[in-house]
């Protein structure tokens, strides 16, 4: 490689490193703010004020969903397997909302420590399989 090309190569590598470094700095400065939601443990530690609009997320605890028969009110518990958070919500739930499935809720804390959600989003995992396979796996467990 001739000297001029070598020089250009060094310049390009410097640009790339600079750009990666800048991106890394931005990301580390934002750090926690890059997360979409807080876990129940983080919310417990943070001692948030009631009016702050936040997103909380975790798994819906098995057997915790209580649907009101006369309205769209629903109460359920979100857990990160360390702490729980009780969620109150009024509205239509996404199709994938289920026990033991991931969920992200937006809203604010009530004075009693429960959470008033204005939006419930369902998370789905990266596993895909036909129903028959899923059934077999259930039986294995």
């Amino acid at each position, binding site marked *: 490689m001739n000297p001029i090309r070598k020089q250009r190569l060094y310049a390009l590598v410097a640009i790339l490193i600079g750009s990666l470094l800048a*991106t890394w700095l931005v990301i580390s400065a934002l750090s926690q703010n890059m997360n979409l939601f807080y876990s129940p443990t983080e919310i417990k530690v943070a001692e948030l004020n009631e009016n702050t609009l936040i997103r909380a997320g975790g798994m819906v605890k098995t057997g915790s969903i209580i649907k009101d028969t006369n309205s769209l009110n629903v109460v359920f518990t979100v857990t990160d397997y360390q702490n729980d958070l009780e969620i109150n919500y009024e509205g239509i739930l996404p199709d*994938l909302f289920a026990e033991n499935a991931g969920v*992200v809720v937006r809203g604010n804390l009530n004075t009693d420590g429960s959470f008033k959600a204005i939006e419930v989003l*369902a998370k789905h995992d990266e596993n*895909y399989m*036909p129903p028959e396979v899923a059934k077999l796996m259930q039986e294995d467990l």
Partner: protein
Amino acid sequence: MIKKWLIEMGSPPLFYKWSTKILPWLFISAILILGIGLFWGLLFAPTDYKQGDVYRILYIHVPSAILGQSIFMFMAFCGFINVIWRAKISGMMLKSAAPIGVSFTLLALVTGSIWGKPTWGTWWVWDARLTSTLILFFIYAALIGLHSTIEDKTKADRAVSILSIVGLAIIPVIKKSVDWWQTLHQPSTFTITSSPSMSPDMYQPLLLCLIGFYLFFALLLTLNLRNEILERERTKNWVKQLLGGAG
């Protein structure tokens, strides 16, 4: 041997002649593989135990997202060659790939949105994966915009080359966003370290779709590049001869 071939391919007229020969093969293989992959995935692959038939959109969403990122890496690679060796064809390649890359990225965003509504319950959320992909889309737009603002094509190529190398930093962020932060988007189904968390009769058509998308990209790139070559070399003798002296 390889060096000689590379130098030959770097010459616009030789590349043009060579591409005329491979174009029909590229066309047939792209249509065939993409067709089989999509038919298989959209009609014959089993339904998902949780999402039902909705998940089938991944046969378009996943390949287009992968292509959006691969094309960007390809462009940065062309940019690299263009800056160091000043090979004219690498600049043309970079320019020809940009509109294809931006289209695939947009397709990934749109199909993701359509998939998000019935499964997550929202069209859009500002999580790290979605936001970083949107940034990629804007970087593509900036590259295309920058190229069209500079009159001198060679200078435009060089400017875009450098910007594409700067933009390369977004790719690892997109890739790792689902692992580094809590997102609504699920983590990758396919990883290098473990077997795919998807049953074989679902990922086989996906693999075919992915190969099909790559071939389709190669086809579009070749077509775009041929146009670009003719346009930039229109004053050269070989183009005049090719077009029967009409120009």
